[in-house]
């Protein structure tokens, strides 16, 4: 199933972080993205849904899963508030830039969670958005935003000044159909998860088309509604193949080297829960974490919704400085962490 490259690719599971909550505080609720600061804190963007909008926030934890706080609370259009946040990125000053597809803006918070400013407006002109989704920031603090309903990528300076844009609706190379995740590699090239075109597209930092990876389907090398991509220093592409409920890894040449369904285990918060509520362990013990399913329940989301270790709604993939890969599962309220074997 995997293609052997010169050095065999191997991705190891590390651990699972998180558990579900219906309150603010410790827990995740439909997390959509993570970011890791230089001091090793992990910031989790919780989107929730509009029926329980008061739970939207960015939660802060560390690698030991101590809950440290939150910011961006209080659903609304005001300064420091979020409504339908999609993604976040850190710039060189370690400020968070968070896209909001309801307000069509980017909100900036500093590392302590204080609101700095917001920019952007609704429309299709330069610097305007119709559903800003993925966001990535390169080493020079250029900001790249996937503008989903305008089917384009826009590039800005650190302060939100428009630089350039490229794309347009369609399925030709260089065109997009509701693009979602964006990332920048160590060479400064830009990758876009071209959601409805079922592919990843690679561009130079000024938008010149370089390559396209993937096509519609669920086999190796195929994608179904990819939502995000991360690229490591060697050029391996880690794709949250959202519609296929899996993590797919492509070599720099675009060959599939891994397809993971997920292997979540109990997180630290989960273990703490069971320590206090031992009868819950009994019910869990009676259930099958990886059931054999009848043939009509074969679609990826059918399988994932009944199988505990599997990804369900893997919306984003992010790499940190240590090479740890964070896969955020919006439907499972947790993050699975992997690391490439040395």
């Amino acid at each position, binding site marked *: 199933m995997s293609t052997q490259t010169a050095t065999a690719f191997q991705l190891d599971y590390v651990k699972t972080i998180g558990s579900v*909550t219906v309150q603010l505080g*410790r827990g995740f609720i439909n997390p959509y993205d993570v970011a890791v600061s230089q001091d090793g804190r992990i910031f989790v963007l919780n989107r929730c849904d509009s029926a329980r909008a008061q739970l939207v926030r960015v939660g802060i934890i560390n690698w030991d899963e101590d809950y440290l706080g939150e910011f961006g609370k209080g659903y609304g259009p005001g300064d420091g508030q979020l409504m339908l946040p999609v993604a976040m990125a850190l710039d060189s000053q370690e400020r968070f830039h968070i896209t909001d597809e309801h307000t069509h803006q980017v909100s900036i918070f500093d590392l302590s969670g204080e609101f700095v400013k917001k920019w952007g407006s609704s429309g299709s002109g330069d610097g305007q958005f119709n559903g800003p989704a993925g966001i990535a920031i390169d080493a020079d603090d250029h900001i790249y935003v996937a503008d989903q309903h305008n089917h384009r990528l826009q590039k800005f300076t650190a302060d939100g000044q428009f630089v350039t844009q490229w794309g347009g609706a369609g399925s030709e190379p260089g065109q997009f159909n509701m693009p979602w995740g964006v990332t920048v590699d160590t060479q400064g090239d830009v990758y876009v998860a071209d959601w409805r075109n079922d592919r990843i597209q690679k561009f130079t930092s000024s938008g010149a088309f370089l390559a396209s990876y993937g096509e519609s389907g669920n086999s190796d090398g195929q994608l179904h509604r990819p939502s995000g991509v991360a690229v490591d220093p060697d050029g391996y592409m880690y794709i949250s193949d959202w519609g296929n409920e899996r993590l797919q890894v492509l070599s720099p040449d675009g060959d599939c080297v891994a397809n993971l369904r997920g292997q979540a285990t109990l997180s630290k918060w989960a273990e703490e*829960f069971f320590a206090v509520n031992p009868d819950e362990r009994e019910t869990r013990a009676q259930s099958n974490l990886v059931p054999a399913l009848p043939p009509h329940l074969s679609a990826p989301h059918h399988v994932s919704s009944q199988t505990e270790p599997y990804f369900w709604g893997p919306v984003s993939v992010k790499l940190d400085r240590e090479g740890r890969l964070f896969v955020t599962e919006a439907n499972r309220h947790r993050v699975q962490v992997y690391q490439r074997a040395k």
Partner: protein
Amino acid sequence: MKINGKDSVLVVLQLSGGNDFMNTIIPYTNGIYHDSRPTVGIPAEQVLPLNDTLGFHPRTGRLKALYDMDKVAIIQGIGYPNSNRSHFRGMDIWHTCEPDRLVTEGWLGKTLYELDPQHENVLTGVSFGRGLPRAMAKAGVPVTSVGNLDNYGMMTSIQQDQERLESLEIFKEMYAPAVGSGAVRDYLSQTGLDVLKGSDVIKKAPQTYRSTVDYPDNPIAKSLRDVARVHFADLGTRVFYTQHAGYDTHANEVPTHPRLVDELSSALYAFMQDLWEHERAEEVAILVFTEFGRRVKDNGSGTDHGSGGGAFLIGERIKGGLYGEYPSLDPSQQEHGEDLVHHVDYRGVYSTLLEQWLGVEARPIVNGHYEQLQPFAA
């Protein structure tokens, strides 16, 4: 039933989500409490003691003030056998008095039927909030659900007063009964016109209300103020229903629960002040309840569903004090080794209110005979 010449009134205040009773009335001298609750436990020195072993949560000062006036009956260890830990089913059981069957009639719906058998007054039962809680439901019994007392009735989204009045005039014309249109259309006409009539009547409440009391700015205070406004307008309401949401503190209990009990306490205090100011307190009794209590042990961020919670009866005519028995924290005394045991069946509390306060026979409403308390002053 008349109290000092006025019809007795019951105000039911539902705490939705499962209030952590053990952090509301706290066994502050019990080592098990502190050991089990390293995260959410309240330090003994912060508690407001009411006796040598129990104290109020530090943010419930206003409720304690009412308790110190002997107006609060704390019902400890309230529940029922095989307590259900699901919010919906658990709350249903409190609403319908049917632990084993799903039914659609509630105890207050049946009560309203007894209080107003001819359904002469659609305001006999008033619920604040959208939709009708099952507790108040019974087929054929009209209950008024008020989302916003200051803007109640038909076509409330038409902002300009004059235009709204004109539209309501047109509405009235359109709903005039038409001869020969059949039973369903007759019913629809009647219902529409009744709503118009009801809104005209209920309008009096905000229009005639005068008070010096400053209610705090929180949702339950707003509801209780609406109760006061309707009560003072003498519209014939006998049963009020209000809800305070957010008590499901599986996580984040440390900031959340104190805020909630603070809101609750200050709201109840303001409400009592308002009743006293208008000399309308004698005939009002308040029941504060929740669908279940929470676990003894915390989970590091909050507490999970448990049982054997508590309830409060508050009012001018209440003999304040402790009722029932505080459930034992000793694990060997607990259900399944981890849930607090109840000593007072909730249907006994309902029966107490039905017979001793509202003057209505309890057995057919609560589906059985349950021991009552004696919380009312002679």
